[in-house]
């Protein structure tokens, strides 16, 4: 069963009225092409500005009906779990209340459940296979723009399933962001801090990450989309392989794998993580655009953009786009989105924020991660290890105020030590770091975390007068030994 646009809006409005301390329901700057308001939810606990943010959008393609319902239900579930201290149970996967609290306490969750209200209305009243928005066509012919081809990332490059012909279902529109529905998404990304993004589509059971317009490569950073022409209505240059930072690719793959596992846990559905291009060639998509912003506009925040394709193919397209019973698929995607949100939390930034007075307090360490460790395969395996394990570590750390203070202390001392890379490392810092890690591992009681702590201990010992630079050189040349 599927809600109408008005019903989706009403849930958001009522949720905000009922829980004003946790939910903000806003009308986005522009109405749809047919004059319908488009709304966004912001769900969170606590206060503060410039918190990490995740943006979830649904209903971009009108006929993919499940996802707006799933997103408003996710908003309700987050709030009720937080306020009631209850777990979220999704089939075989239970999301502990502590995990939801961590998400709510640390992030702003922005949700545009129904990005394309005109299209949804049209699906429910005229044509249940409609995909685009309802932009009037020239001379009354061929209405509609494919909103997921209208963003400013190689806009108008007719690669794969992208077209400059208005009569197609994959029409790019008259210009990048020509449509009010896509400009509404742009307005959120421009005005809020968005670290992670998911555009939720159907169907195929995929978790997609950049790029959509060409095969990826991690060798030649000069091969950037910013050097390609736009608006050509021609495919991408033959043989083009777009550069993706290997650290980013690793992160996309790591997070996607977590999402896939969270979905499997619900009822065994096996989603496939893959590059967007694997589905078919595209340009101007939301998820590639949002990730590409920091490349096209140096200084812009990096946002990790994903597209989920929810639900299986069930023998024909109509029933796959809107199955008679979407409830199992909604549970799958909810679990996947929770995993995505959880992966969007960064433990070291959290320590900076909670203990040291601001995320900027760990900027020096973040630079070492992004500008030094990330440059080698061995260094990236350390980053990957940390990102894999932090999900288990964070709840334990933040449930124990004394342990959190000790972690903050060693992070601050490591940060200070990094400011003089040639000075010998303090034995006390290493000893205290290992003690904190050991106590965290004891609290987590997880074999993977134990193995990770052992790997860190081996890397840090013996200190023997090594400098910070020496340690970093070691980490960038030799990855963790996991046993």
């Amino acid at each position: 069963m599927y809600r109408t646009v008005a019903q989706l809006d009403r849930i958001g409005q009522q949720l905000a009225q009922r829980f004003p301390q946790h939910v903000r329901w806003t009308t986005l700057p522009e109405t749809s092409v047919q004059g319908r308001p488009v709304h966004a939810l912001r769900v969170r606990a606590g206060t503060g500005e410039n918190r990490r943010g995740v943006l979830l959008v649904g209903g971009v393609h009108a006929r993919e009906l499940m996802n707006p319902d799933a997103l408003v239900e996710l908003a309700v579930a987050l709030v009720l779990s937080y306020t009631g201290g209850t777990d979220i149970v999704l089939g075989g996967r239970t999301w502990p209340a502590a995990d939801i609290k961590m998400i709510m306490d640390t992030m702003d969750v922005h949700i545009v459940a129904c990005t394309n209200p005109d299209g949804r209305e049209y699906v429910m009243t005229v044509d249940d296979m409609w995909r685009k928005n309802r932009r009037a066509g020239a001379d009354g012919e061929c209405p509609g723009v494919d909103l997921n081809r209208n963003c400013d990332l190689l806009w108008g490059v007719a690669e794969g399933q992208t077209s400059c012909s208005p009569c197609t279902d994959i029409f790019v529109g008259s210009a990048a962001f020509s449509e009010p529905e896509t400009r509404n998404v742009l307005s959120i990304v421009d005005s809020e801090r968005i670290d992670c993004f998911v555009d939720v589509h159907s169907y195929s059971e995929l978790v997609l990450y950049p790029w959509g317009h060409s095969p990826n490569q991690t060798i030649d950073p000069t091969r950037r989309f910013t050097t390609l022409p736009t608006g050509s209505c021609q495919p991408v240059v033959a043989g083009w392989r777009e550069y993706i930072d290997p650290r980013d690719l690793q992160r996309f793959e790591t997070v996607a794998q977590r999402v896939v596992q969270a979905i499997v846990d619900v009822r065994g559905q096996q989603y496939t993580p893959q590059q967007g291009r694997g589905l078919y060639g595209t340009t101007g998509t939301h998820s590639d655009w949002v990730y590409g912003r920091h490349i096209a506009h140096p200084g812009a925040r990096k946002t990790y953009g994903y597209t989920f394709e929810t639900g299986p193919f069930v023998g024909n397209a109509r029933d796959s786009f809107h199955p008679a019973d979407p409830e199992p698929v909604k549970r799958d995607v909810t679990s996947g989105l929770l995993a995505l949100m959880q992966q969007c939390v960064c433990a070291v930034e959290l320590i900076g924020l909670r203990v040291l007075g601001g995320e900027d307090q760990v900027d020096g360490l973040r630079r070492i991660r992004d500008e030094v460790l990330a440059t080698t395969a061995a260094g990236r395996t350390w980053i990957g290890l940390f990102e894999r394990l932090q999900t288990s570590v964070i709840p334990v750390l933040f449930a124990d105020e004394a342990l959190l203070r000790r972690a903050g202390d060693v992070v601050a001392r490591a940060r200070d030590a990094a400011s003089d890379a040639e000075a010998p490392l303090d034995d006390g810092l290493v000893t205290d770091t290992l003690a904190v890690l050991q106590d965290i591992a004891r609290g987590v009681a997880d074999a993977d975390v134990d193995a990770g702590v052992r790997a860190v201990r081996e890397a840090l010992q013996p200190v023997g007068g090594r400098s910070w630079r020496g340690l970093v050189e070691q980490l960038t040349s030799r990855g963790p030994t996991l046993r």
Partner: protein
Amino acid sequence: MSTSEPVPVRFEAVVRSNTHELAISTIDALDLDRVPDSGGEIRLIVGPEDCARLVAEGYEVRLQQVVPVQPLDPELVVSDSAAQAWFDEQVGG
């Protein structure tokens, strides 16, 4: 033929050729509405004229079913009362 305007007849079809990659490039060039297929087939929503074009290009076009232009089955649309009841139940009235 446009697949984006309501048309009298359209089909869900699977297109096959000896060369899968060539078929994909043709589909891309013809600007057809390709929908996902878990088996890796080339699955389209197409009108009769597009079918004829594909056949003329030498492709095998297997029509799976008619896809009439029709609104979503009203049985699949939540009633206002049910939508409100769901919310009330969730938040405890």
